[in-house]
């Protein structure tokens, strides 16, 4: 009698559990998992979305090796990351340090000010960027002139457009990353600093030898998430430059987007997407590994 009742309850638990998981299992399967497999399948085909797929083997992958526009887009992506990631990291870390040192009501006010751009959507940030960076009349050039500099072309210049976009994306994301740093800093016990102070370590020294090492996990998290994000920056670019001027802001995702949706080269675009996915996937694995080894170490 008793074993049977237990098994009925157990079975009931299994049914409920799978019932609860079903919508997400199906949803994640159809809208995340299958698309990845589908991308790989499509990448092995010659397919322009209008005619039927023709099996092509690795031809698309061989083609991308000789596609100068693809390599150029990879270089643009890396340029963007190399500029954006350290800048975002440093500015959110420094603002967190500053905010952590501010006490009382001022701290809440400053935090709100830093976080407010986060409430701006990517398209609106792009619009504001275009307006403020206008080469002839934009506010940024007004300020440059007030400071004695000469006006710049920004989004209209092949050498400055990417930096300008990085600046706009940086602006709306600093506050978010600052909060993550700040909450990690708040968890560092005060005693550490007090003990260090007795040993004569204050200011830069206590930051260098206490704060930074204890922020290692958070720093790694932010670095990897930002790097992955930087490989995918697309929305602001679409609105502000659409890859121009002269392809100077055509990053990899934008090239994939254009190959797929504008030129309808579905097979080729899928191969490009799949390669980029593999790169990002390796980065994510690296991130998971770092985080889990860190947890075991503690």
């Amino acid at each position, binding site marked *: 009698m008793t074993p049977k009742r237990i098994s009925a309850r157990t079975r009931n638990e299994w049914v*409920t559990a799978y019932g609860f*998981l079903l919508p997400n299992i199906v949803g994640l399967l159809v809208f995340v998992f299958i*698309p990845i497999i589908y991308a790989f399948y499509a990448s092995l085909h010659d397919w322009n979305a209008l005619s039927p797929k023709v099996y092509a083997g690795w031809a698309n992958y061989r083609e991308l090796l000789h596609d100068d526009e693809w390599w150029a887009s990879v270089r643009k992506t890396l340029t963007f990351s190399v500029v954006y990631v350290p800048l975002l990291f440093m500015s959110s870390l420094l603002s967190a340090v500053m905010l952590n040192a501010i006490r009382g009501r001022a701290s809440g006010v400053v935090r709100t*000010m830093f976080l407010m751009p986060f409430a701006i959507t990517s398209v609106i940030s792009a619009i504001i960027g275009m307006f403020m960076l206008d080469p002839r009349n934009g506010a940024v050039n007004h300020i440059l002139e007030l400071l004695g500099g000469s006006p710049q072309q920004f989004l209209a210049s092949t050498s400055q457009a990417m930096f300008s976009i990085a600046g706009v994306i940086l602006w709306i994301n600093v506050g978010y990353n600052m909060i993550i740093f700040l*909450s990690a800093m708040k968890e560092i016990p005060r005693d550490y600093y007090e003990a260090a102070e007795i040993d004569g370590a204050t200011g830069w020294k206590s930051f260098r030898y206490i704060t930074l090492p204890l922020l290692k996990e958070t720093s790694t*998290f932010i670095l990897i998430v930002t790097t992955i994000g930087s490989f*995918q920056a697309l929305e602001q670019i*679409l609105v502000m430059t659409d890859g121009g001027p002269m392809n100077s802001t055509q990053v990899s995702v934008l090239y994939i987007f254009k190959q797929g949706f504008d030129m309808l080269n*579905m097979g080729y675009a899928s191969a490009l997407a799949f390669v980029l996915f593999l790169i990002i996937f390796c980065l*994510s694995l690296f991130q998971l590994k770092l985080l889990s080894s860190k947890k075991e170490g503690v």
Partner: protein
Amino acid sequence: MAVSKRMVLPVVGVLLGLLMLFPIYMMLISSLRSETTVFDFQLLPVEFEWSNFKTAWTESGLPRAILNSLFVSVTVTVVAMVFHAMSGYALARLNFPGKSVVFGWMLSTLMVPFSIIMLPLYLITKDLGLGNSYWGLIVPSIFNAYGIFLFRQFYRDFPKELEEAAYMEGLSLAGTFFRIAFPLSVPIIVPLTIGFFLANWNSYLWPLVITQDEKLWVVQQELAHIVGGGYFTPWNIVLAAAVIAAIPTFILFFIAQRYLVEGIKMSGIK
């Protein structure tokens, strides 16, 4: 020296904060200038052109786009909260075979970046007959392992006694969840709701890909169209439209800043 230091940091902080706010201020103030003075560089306009807002509202698809965005964002958020809570609860509180496999698999989907699957996702969604429709805007946006993960964390620390008592009273496991656990999940639902709503209100790429019909355009698409749709729209009107589109997120920001901060902290802790 300690006194001056105490004064310096807040002042520097506020100055930097003002720098962060400057572009937002420029959007607001320039949206009130006339077409010819929109680029004027003084902190206050000579005269306030409130009619810009009327023009932006009546001469664009903004009203309809805002309704579309509201409808899509609210629907996605509500459905996602229920589905994700159910899954999070099952993973935290119920025992069943294959639990760790399911959980690991769900987490692994977090590694799939949206911009990479955009193309196959579009093809699949279209093949399912959801292309160019509200369904296509809504359904694929619901599923996200992130919410499941955070609900699971929350339910792991949830007091067991309440559920035990409910179960003893004869409530089913599903009943226990819907009547007891879910209503008590407000501390996790609020920050997640804000996060989901904002993310969907921000959504631009997916709607751009999946909709062709102008009637289905969401607010970000409409804005992108106003600023770069091929026709010349004066900057003061563009900015007025941007201000209108930013109002909902700013209201949400000020009402829910505390929860927003909580949500951000959770994302960093992982």
